[in-house]
């Protein structure tokens, strides 16, 4: 009879623990890193005289986990952060190169464009305006203005690209600081887990904290985690162990010694083992996942690639215009000082686009030599020509041709040459458009993959409120039933006592 009472009490205890676990689950339904808990029950074996058993016992409160789903979720979230950062960098690059189109008007046959492409079109047409009146100043002044406008556009876009590169590097540094703080937290949690383990305890709350830290790390750098026998986690980034037991490495941003396509220094991540001084060389960490990987791709590859391509546009503009000017002659109507005393011919045309701080170079006959090399950041308009636009080489004839605009006409036709800046710029627009489009669609599909992975993990380890509430009712019934057992046995004993 007393056995029945104690079985009832064991049932009450078990139901109470189950109710506790369920309450904990419902309370933590939205806690990041939380894995739902389950009270593990087992039959309490009876003594040698008991054939019924001694009731029920709670062996442990276990966490519902899935190593496979956790790992694939971690991987998917890392990949998502990676492509998301890449996409952000590419969109930012794309924003630097607007299409600049106005709405095409159907009432007139014109369509203006405010981008570099539109400036180029107007620039080429400006040479025809010079050809229509080679000895007038106005069209020449306007072409100098247009050239300066384009140089400014090129300079500004180039400096925006540099600024983007700087900002992205700063984002990496911020992320690395955050990673270092997370690594320290992980090492501390490991230390607590190890201490508990040596005392024979498991602590679900510490595991939950660790899983939250690991998820944050995964989104930043992509980590792989190996559970150790004492319950601690071995955290590894790109083959380098960064948290082992209570020890955490420190990450830092550094230059790798390589250079990018645009000639800037490539940056990378190194790890300093715990206790190592910052002066020792760190271990290179190949980060291939997480937002840091995406940002590194941006700084080391995407931005330099477009910087390079944009420099190509500036160089194509300078080369195309300057070499045509050099083929022409400088026949300003005001002219005596512009003729070469040795030959009596007009001087060949000076370059229009030169690097900032350009010093004119001439050969023995006083003709300009060498086509200057420019970049998008250095391109500017030759100050000699700004001071006297009449010196623009509009003529193709060495002598007696004040009203010759043939060279200007030739220049006007250069908008369509295959090595010209227009095509180079169109290619750049097409490339950045295609890259951004690809990143956009990768982001969309990776978002679906990551959402799927998270749903799969959460469906196992997460808290479904409906299920928990159903379980809650069932445990409540269990508790009430066990209480009923106790009261029934009590009543039985009372009735026996009364009968005696």
């Amino acid at each position: 009879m007393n056995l029945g009472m104690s079985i009832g009490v064991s049932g009450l205890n078990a139901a109470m623990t189950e109710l506790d676990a369920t309450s904990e689950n419902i309370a933590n339904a939205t806690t990041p890193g939380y894995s739902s808990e389950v009270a593990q029950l087992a039959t309490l074996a009876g003594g040698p005289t008991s054939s019924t058993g001694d009731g029920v016992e709670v062996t442990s409160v276990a966490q519902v986990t899935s190593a496979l789903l956790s790992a694939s979720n971690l991987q998917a979230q890392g990949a998502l952060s990676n492509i998301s950062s890449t996409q952000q960098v590419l969109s930012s690059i794309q924003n630097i190169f607007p299409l600049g189109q106005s709405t095409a008007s159907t009432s007139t046959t014109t369509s203006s464009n405010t981008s570099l492409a539109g400036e180029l079109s107007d620039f080429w047409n400006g040479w025809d305006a010079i050809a229509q009146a080679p000895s007038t100043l106005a069209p020449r002044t306007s072409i100098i203005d247009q050239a300066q406008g384009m140089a400014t556009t090129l300079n500004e876009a180039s400096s925006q690209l540099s600024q983007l590169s700087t900002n992205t590097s700063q984002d990496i540094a911020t992320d690395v600081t955050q990673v270092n703080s997370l690594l320290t937290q992980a090492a501390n949690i490991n230390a607590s887990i190890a201490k508990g383990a040596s005392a024979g305890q498991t602590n679900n709350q510490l595991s939950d904290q660790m899983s939250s830290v690991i998820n944050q790390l995964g989104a930043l750098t992509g980590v792989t985690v190996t559970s150790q026998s004492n319950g601690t986690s071995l955290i590894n980034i790109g083959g380098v162990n960064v948290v082992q037991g209570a020890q955490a490495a420190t990450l830092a941003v550094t230059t790798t010694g390589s250079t990018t396509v645009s000639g800037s220094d490539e940056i990378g991540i190194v790890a300093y083992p715990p206790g190592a001084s910052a002066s020792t060389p760190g271990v290179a960490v190949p980060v291939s996942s997480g937002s840091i990987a995406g940002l590194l791709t941006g700084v080391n590859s995407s931005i330099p690639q477009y910087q390079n391509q944009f420099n190509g546009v500036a160089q194509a503009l300078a080369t195309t215009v300057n070499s045509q000017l050099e083929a022409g002659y400088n026949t300003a109507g005001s002219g005596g000082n512009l003729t070469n005393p040795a030959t009596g011919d007009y001087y060949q045309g000076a370059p229009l686009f030169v690097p900032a701080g350009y010093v004119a170079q001439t050969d023995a006959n006083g003709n300009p030599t060498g086509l200057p090399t420019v970049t998008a950041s250095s391109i500017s308009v030759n100050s000699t020509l700004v001071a006297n636009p009449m010196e623009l080489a509009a003529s193709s004839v060495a002598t007696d041709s004040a009203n010759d605009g043939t060279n200007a006409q030739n220049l006007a036709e250069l908008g369509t040459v295959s090595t010209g800046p227009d095509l180079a710029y169109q290619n750049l627009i097409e490339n950045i458009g295609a890259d951004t489009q690809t990143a956009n669609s990768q982001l969309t599909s990776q978002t679906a993959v990551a959402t799927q992975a998270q749903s799969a993990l959460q469906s196992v380890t997460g808290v479904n409120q409906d299920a928990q509430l159903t379980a809650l009712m069932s445990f409540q019934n269990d508790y009430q039933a066990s209480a009923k057992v106790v009261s029934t046995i009590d009543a039985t004993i009372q009735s026996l006592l009364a009968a005696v």
Partner: protein
Amino acid sequence: MTAIQSSSPILLSPSVLESSMINNLNTDQTALATVENQLSSGNAVTQPSDNPAGAANILQLQGSLTRANQYASNAANGVSWLSLGNSTVNSVLNVLQSLQSTVEGLSGNSLTGGSATITATQTAATGALNQLLNLANTTEAGGQPIFAGTGGGSAAYNADGAYLGNNTAPTRTVAPGTQVAIATTGPQIFGDSTTTAGLLGTGSGGTAVGVLQQIVNDLGTAASATTTSARTAAISQVTGADLQNLNTAITTVENAAGALGTNEQTVQSFSVQATNSATSILGELSSVQDTNVAQATTNLQLEQDAYQSALYATSQLSTDALVKYL
């Protein structure tokens, strides 16, 4: 408790539901914004990633369009030069033909009418010479002499009738790689007065005596002749060889006028061609660039529906739960 572990594949936790709802809302909102942007801007391609090849194509077409409009403007400029040239050459013809008839009328009455007729004819010839010099120095609106080729300053001929320009006619680009001459150089009409006698040479300042100056000179000889035979000889020089030279010069000017007329027609047809090509490029451009309003409006409706459904689903998320019925 085993219920959780062995349950059907997807058991949604609030955080999964929440994040997937937010994702869906964001996706719908982005799609809606894209369509709204297309409709409000009128551009189907607002950034290169909308349509990379289309974006490059738009830039290229806009470049071609701007260029085609410039060809039209070049051609219009050429037409104005050529029509000015044409009317000037016709004036030259009128002056020469009127002098021709005056000189032709000389033979009959000059012997009897005495020096008055001769002097009047001489004055007419001198006047014609001055008129031609003015016409030869005609300038277009920008001040450039139209018969000076691409050389020279503000005039094609000096007062002595010497040519100051060069022998290259200015051109205009009227189609890709196509340049047409928009004027005739002075020597082709008036001669240069040095290597050929031409119409304008006065014989001073290093120039040869031109056709008109020769008539003036010979009439001067006739007027001042003291004997009838000398006068007759001088007059017959005017009505003979001089008139012959004048006729030849008229033929030359007529040919030049014909050539200018042909050129004007050519440039005019290039002008029409450039305008047509601008129109067709614009059509092509708008097919790549412009929003298909019917399609975008339909898409807008679809996206609005999708967004509203997503919003409704989100609003139901918190209300439809077991907890409500307990």
